[in-house]
């Protein structure tokens, strides 16, 4: 139950450290036993054999030396366990990061950031005690009692038997309580994770909650959540404490039983005081490993529960690489290649209707293709497939002859400049935010891109210019400014393919016009895909694809589509004769 094989396998690479920890723990126990022996010898000598201080002085000196030795051993044991913990944490986080990256943004983004953050940081922290305390203790709880038995048996087999009889009661009881506690712990950890996600949700949405006068309710809910968390935690802890209580009581009663039992035998003179004293001193030490196991038991359990969450991320299927064909090793990008989409369909998990329904279109090279249609028609979904964020449910996309899935994702994306519908700006300065699309870009290149995106003037009017901070997700910027900074990002990339999702949605008509005119000019020799609701921006596109409810319903250029007198025209003139 508590010994998790997968979890144990993480020790690989630090196995040596782990065994050193156990070994040092064992050595420390040996010194403890020796100290007990010495102590009983000294006291016995003075008490019964009328020895003087001189007689026992060597023993006392050895005792002091041993005490120092024990401290050093314990300290080095913990030294190793601290370094083991560092190693384990790092390797878990490394694994998780790699996995987060390969799960793909779409699947990840609809998850709760707060929950993932909690798993990545606090969840991994919880493993600390599992590895540094619980796991070594599991070994030590077997080894140390055996060691002590080796010393005790020759002296007094009766006590040895008391030890042997009482010892198994402890793990047995732990096992019984353990299975209940384990379930509770898992639930508990989930609650904690959800709480973290809920808090993040609230923190990011406080403005909205304020606008709707809902903050009191939320605070009340936080109180409620915290209190129900308290009650649940206490229930878990009650079980954990109970198991510790049982351990404690078993241990102390056993010590008491032994004390009385040897006391009585001493009384009748058939037992030596020196041995009795030794046994009395060592008896608590016999139970100590179990008690420590009991103490770290709860921590271990928590670690295990946290691991469950971590593992949920680790076993998540990698969406875009699971179906990948054999990769081209030397894929050569040629700008003159068309992108051919064949019978493409996609259904989101949990949805019944298809977001894309048998789409077949061709995006001509060095041309401007526009994607228009009703809100929710599937435009962004198509783009997500083109970007390899999701795999189509059926159908294929070919880049010339090559199936897109046979091309390495990174190679493919290196040839794309992309403007998302809702771009994310990071909590960094403007320069770093733009430069994310091309790490090595010079400041001149960045300025150039910003000029094209019509945001350079704004940036240079800031006090710190390109070094200005922008707040979380661009909180210090207007909607249109965010969009233009993201556009500068795309331009900086200077890639042969340009995919833009509603580039001018938050811009005024004048800026919009400038940007669009520039875009048509700048990208005349590149392949461009524009998703747009503002049809004035795509009128001059070479090809316009009109989508509705996951289907392509019309294609052609503006004039052809007007002549068709179909849905495009209806969209265009929705507000009357002129826009």
């Amino acid at each position: 139950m508590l010994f998790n094989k997968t979890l144990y396998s993480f020790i690989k690479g630090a196995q040596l450290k782990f065994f050193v920890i156990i070994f040092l723990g064992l050595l420390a126990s040996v010194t403890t036993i020796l100290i007990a022996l010495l102590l009983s010898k000294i006291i016995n000598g003075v008490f019964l054999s009328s020895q003087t201080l001189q007689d026992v002085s060597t023993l006392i000196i050895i005792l002091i030396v041993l005490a120092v030795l024990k401290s050093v051993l314990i300290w080095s044991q913990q030294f190793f366990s601290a370094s083991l913990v560092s190693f384990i944490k790092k390797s878990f986080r490394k694994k998780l990061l790699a996995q987060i990256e390969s799960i793909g943004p779409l699947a990840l983004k609809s998850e709760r950031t707060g929950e993932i953050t909690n798993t990545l940081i606090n969840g991994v922290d919880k493993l600390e005690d599992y590895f540094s305390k619980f796991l070594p203790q599991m070994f030590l709880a077997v080894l140390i009692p055996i060691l002590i038995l080796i010393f005790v048996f020759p002296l007094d087999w009766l006590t040895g038997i008391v030890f042997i009889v009482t010892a198994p009661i402890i793990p047995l009881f732990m096992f019984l309580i353990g299975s209940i506690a384990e379930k509770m712990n898992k639930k508990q950890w989930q609650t904690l994770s959800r709480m973290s996600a809920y808090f993040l949700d609230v923190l990011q949405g406080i403005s909205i909650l304020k606008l709707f006068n809902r903050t009191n309710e939320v605070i009340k809910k936080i109180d409620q959540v915290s209190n129900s968390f308290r009650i649940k935690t206490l229930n878990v802890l009650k079980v954990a404490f109970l198991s510790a209580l049982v351990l404690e009581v078993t241990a102390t009663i056993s010590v008491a039983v032994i004390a009385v039992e040897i006391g009585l035998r001493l009384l009748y003179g058939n037992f030596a005081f020196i041995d009795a004293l030794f046994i009395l001193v060592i008896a608590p030490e016999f139970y100590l490993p179990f008690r420590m196991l009991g103490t770290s038991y709860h921590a271990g359990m928590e670690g295990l529960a946290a691991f469950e969450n971590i593992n949920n991320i680790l076993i998540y299927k990698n969406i875009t690489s699971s179906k990948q064909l054999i990769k081209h090793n030397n894929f050569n990008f040629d700008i003159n290649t068309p992108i051919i989409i064949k019978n493409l369909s996609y259904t989101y998990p949990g949805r019944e209707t298809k977001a894309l329904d048998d789409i077949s279109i061709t995006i001509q090279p060095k041309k401007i293709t526009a994607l228009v249609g009703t809100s929710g028609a599937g435009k962004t979904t198509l783009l997500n497939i083109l970007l390899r964020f999701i795999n189509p449910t059926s159908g294929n996309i070919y880049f010339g002859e090559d199936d897109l899935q046979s091309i390495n994702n990174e190679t493919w994306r290196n040839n794309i400049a992309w403007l998302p519908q809702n771009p994310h700006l990071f909590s960094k300065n403007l320069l770093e935010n733009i430069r994310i699309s091309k790490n090595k870009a010079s400041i001149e290149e960045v300025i150039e891109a910003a000029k094209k995106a019509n945001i350079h003037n704004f940036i240079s009017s800031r006090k710190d210019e390109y070094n200005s901070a922008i707040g979380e997700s661009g909180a210090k910027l207007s909607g249109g400014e965010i969009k233009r900074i993201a556009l500068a990002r795309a331009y900086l990339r200077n890639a042969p393919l340009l995919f833009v999702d509603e580039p001018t949605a938050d811009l005024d008509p004048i800026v919009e016009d400038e940007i669009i005119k520039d875009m048509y000019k700048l990208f005349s020799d590149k392949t461009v895909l524009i998703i747009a609701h503002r049809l004035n921006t795509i009128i001059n596109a070479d090809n316009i694809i009109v989508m509705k409810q996951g289907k392509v319903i019309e294609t052609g250029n503006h004039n052809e589509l007007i002549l068709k007198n179909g849905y495009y025209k209806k969209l265009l003139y929705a507000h009357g004769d002129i826009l």
Partner: protein
Amino acid sequence: MIKVFFRIVSLGKEYKYWMLLAALIGFLTVGSGIGLMMTSSYLIAKAALQTPIYQLQVAIVGVRFFGISRGVFRYLERYISHNVTFKLLAKFRVWFFTALVPIVPSKTIDLTSGDLLTRSIEDIESIEHIFVRVISPPFIFVATAILMFALLNIFSITYAILFIILFTGSAFAIPYLTFLLSNKIGKKIVLLKSQLKEFTVDSLQGISELIFYGQKDSWENEFNKIQDQLINAEYRMNNIKSLHESLTGLAMNLTVAMMLLIAIPDVVTGALNGVYLSVISIGIMAAFESVAQIPQAFQYLSKSTEAGKRLFDIVDTHKNEDEINLTESAITGYNLRLENISFTYDTNNNALSNISFRINEGERVAIVGASGAGKSTLVNILTKLWDYNTGNIFIGNENYKVLSSTNIRNIISVVPQKVQLFTGTIKENLLIAKDGVTDSELMRVLSEVGLDSLINSLPDKLNTNIGELGQKLSGGESKRLTIARALLRNSPIIIFDEATSHVDNLTEKKILETIKELPATKSVIFITHRLNQMDMFDNIIVLSNGRIVESGTHTELLAKGNFYKKLIDSQNQNITLLS
């Protein structure tokens, strides 16, 4: 630091008796341990002298009694202290959020949600440590010291004094060392952890960009840079902990050795009954249990006070804001009048200068203008999310300055430019606007924004989960959900900020129709870049660079041929040319 410490302590005064009780029981636990060890060693020492059994009865009973009481006390102590701790936790969370809510966003613009998340979870957990780990151990220590002093004094005042010197010596010296070593590190851990969380939240929310731009490596590097520092600090903290643990063990053994050195000659001279030699040394060993807790207390001190500081930061910012003397008077009449409003976010430049206009009850007003002109800023001010610097706003006859924000927000609903939805179902998100609305009413509102067919196609209908921030909806769908949310509220004034920027023309038309059909008493402020059907507005205010450059009806403004006309022309040039 001491100030912060006492401030934290004063937060928990409501539970001081419980904490005192926990400490008392903690002492009883240690005391029972001492009792157990002392009586049992007395028992066997006496028995070694072949004392008649009836003289040992008391000792035997004592051994049993202490054996059981120790376990029970420990259980009680843990239970009580954890219960108090968690109660404090809930209390602190509420305390923190209550202070935080009023100052978002204006005073927290430089804090990220990841940082605030750390404050609301980790930091609060850290200050709670003060109560269990910092306050009670010294108390237990003092009580134990007094008990031991009294016990040893029975034998000889010399023992008592020697013991108290060594005992207090270790209880001060070791923690002091710990404190010196850990002082900076504790603070560092708090800050680094927060930084790591901030970074993680920000990265996860921009994961698409990170993955797309192949930033995985630099992202991981940055994560590792913070993580390495954190793990390094934690590692050092662990080492300090092991140092004091082994030092405490050493101090215990040395104290026993010292005691032997002094007591053995007394046994030889007969001043001390040999029976008590073991009683004393074993009792001392047990007493050190209370020393072991203290260094840890000091280790946590710097961490807890740093966390406390971060929380007080927020709470104190809030204290400086006061909305206390504001009236909750019923607002009569919804005429809105702005007089010379100026506003600046930072001292950089004015986001709004000298804005004056009025919107009479039931009027439909559009606000247009360049991107970054200050339109959304106006919304922030009208809803009191930010406080304006100069000028006055009146609603009815009341000045904004004397109205509470709750009061104002009760009559104004907003569709913010940036979509902000909560993890949860469609229904839950709508009900934020208003309680107790029937499903059919919800569906009616949803159909007004054209979302009814989507909802009907979903397997779970209104109970469909929309993912974090509504990520499982298309851009236009999530925007429309926020429109529905505002409409549902049915307030006298509704502000739409770029409500139609992410939808197609037909959907836009539907939304405009809905707005037209709102009851004639409702005032509408419609901020837009899409200048469609502008003749539906009674007044159009044109903003540029934070100033009103012109205003009037659509026809008036066209006739003027200024900025507004330019905007319209830019938008329509292509289309009018071709059609």
